[in-house]
């Protein structure tokens, strides 16, 4: 809800100030590796699918960049023997505000801070009273962006790298051998809300993309990597995904105006 408010505020600001506001939609597929020791001690791997929506707006004469990102991620993973199956589904919302530095006509660097919300679950199709592990994590962290623009055959290309590293937050996690029956049916929620920092969490997302014009829009090709690892109550979680992505982006608000 808070993210939606920020997004709408950004949209309204961009329209009011007549500033560029880019919307992007990307689809990615690749591999996923999942370790969740609350369910089993071993890694599961399989195919990952990710749909991501971005919204970016530059403000204050290009000094600041506001960036929203909403990802829907699903993977189906199996264990080494092929006898076990996980369904993994996550919604990830990320908002960052970055200070931009246009070093030259080609190079732009930006750095900033933001918030990240991860909601989802890992479901094991054959477990009894520990069939799933839910994730609900809210983090603040650092973000950085580097962009290089160039022309090739009179067409403008840009290569961009973006990263976000969660540093401090809170997250839900049952205790070592605690069942969801005890937490939700009996109401024992002691210890399920945990502080997250580098002592028990290592996570980052990396996105490398190339963008070039295609009609009135821009086509994006890229690589997206996410690493999310925690060790809470002696239960370990590791979610690693590698995706090749394809997407489209454009200043849709401005295009709407020109059509009116």
């Amino acid at each position, binding site marked *: 809800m808070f993210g939606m408010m920020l997004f709408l505020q950004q949209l309204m600001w961009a329209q009011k100030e007549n500033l560029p506001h880019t919307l992007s939609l990307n689809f990615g597929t690749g591999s996923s590796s999942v370790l969740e020791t609350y*369910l089993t001690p071993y890694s599961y791997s399989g195919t990952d699918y990710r749909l991501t929506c971005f919204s970016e707006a530059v403000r204050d004469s290009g000094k600041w960049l506001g960036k929203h990102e909403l990802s829907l991620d699903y993977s189906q993973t199996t264990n080494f023997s092929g006898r076990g199956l996980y369904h993994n589904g996550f919604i990830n919302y990320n908002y960052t505000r970055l200070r931009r530095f246009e070093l030259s006509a080609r190079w732009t660097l930006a750095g900033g801070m933001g918030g990240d919300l991860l909601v989802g679950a890992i479901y094991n199709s054959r477990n*009894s*009273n520990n069939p799933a592990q839910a994730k609900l994590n809210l983090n603040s962290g650092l973000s950085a962006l580097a962009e290089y623009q160039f022309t090739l055959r009179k067409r403008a290309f840009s290569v961009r790298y973006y990263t976000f590293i969660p540093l401090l937050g809170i997250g839900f996690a049952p205790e070592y*051998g605690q069942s969801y029956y005890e937490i939700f049916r*009996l109401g024992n929620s002691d210890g399920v809300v945990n502080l997250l920092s*580098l002592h028990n969490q290592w996570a980052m997302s990396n996105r490398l993309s190339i963008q070039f014009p295609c009609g009135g829009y821009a086509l994006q090709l890229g690589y997206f990597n996410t690493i999310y690892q925690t060790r809470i109550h002696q239960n370990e979680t590791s979610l690693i995904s590698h995706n090749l992505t394809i997407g489209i982006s454009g200043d849709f608000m401005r295009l709407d105006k020109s059509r009116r």
Partner: protein
Amino acid sequence: MSKWIFTIFIGFLLASCVKEPQYSNTPRDNFEALWKLLDERYCFFEYKKLDWNDVHSRYSARISNSMSEEQLFGVMAEMLAELKDGHVNLFSSFDISRYWDWYEKYPDNFDEKIQRRYLGSNYLVASGIKYKVLNDNVGYMYYGSFSDAIGDGNLDQIISRFSLCDGIIIDIRNNGGGDLTNVDILAARFNNERRLVGYITHKTGKGHNDFSNPYPKYLGTTGRLRYQKPVVVLTNRACFSSANDFVSVMKQLPTITIVGDSTGGGSGLPFSSELPNGWSIRFSASPMFNANMDQTEFGIAPDVKVEMNSDDMKKGVDTLIEEARKLIKEKSKTS
């Protein structure tokens, strides 16, 4: 200063790094993985006074990397039987290991053919519960599995039908358990106030004694139909897991009498995991206690011990049902 900051940063990172246990899919590694998994997560080692290290040394000697899958499964199944726990099973594609001594070594105290003589063919069924008013105006309901979901509307129908009876017999013999939620739904129909009915703990770490503080379990009431007359619960050794919990809960209620044999136990909430070869393992992970903080892992004694009489059986009479009818008649006269 910067060196210190760097060292602290690296220390934090190493602390958060996730290390997956490394096992290969050999009989030896599968055995070690099974032993370690239970060593870290099984919840009854101390209560059962089982030396798990000693178990390791005895069974490890029988493992060799040249043994077949069936041979490995056999040794593992024997090792798991040392836990004397009906909630411990190893699942392979060709077999399921199990420990059933908790009821196989005891009298059945239940005969479906004899039960059919009481139910006849005109009994009703709701939420998996077979029910009927017996000819002496005693309500009889048979609930064979707590896996059968109970609907509030169904219970309203059953209790409404029994409302003019002198009492109810709830027969849960041979009920091997299921969903604990159904325990509360059913028991709440016989409870008039929020009541302490037990405790639960869970493991907080890998040590055999790493447990959380006991957390109380309360049975609430329901705003729907509640039964106020005498109730008898029939039990035998094949009442296990959720059925065992049901008996533990019902024992706290004033209008209830437990009749029959001791239950089979199974008070550990089971979790699942797996071995490197993909075999699945189920084990007790979170112990539950009765309202006096007593363990019920090995069963709950009835209030009135009754066993099936062989002469009765020859006549097609269920000794436990007859005793329950007698008790209800006595109680209904005094109440």
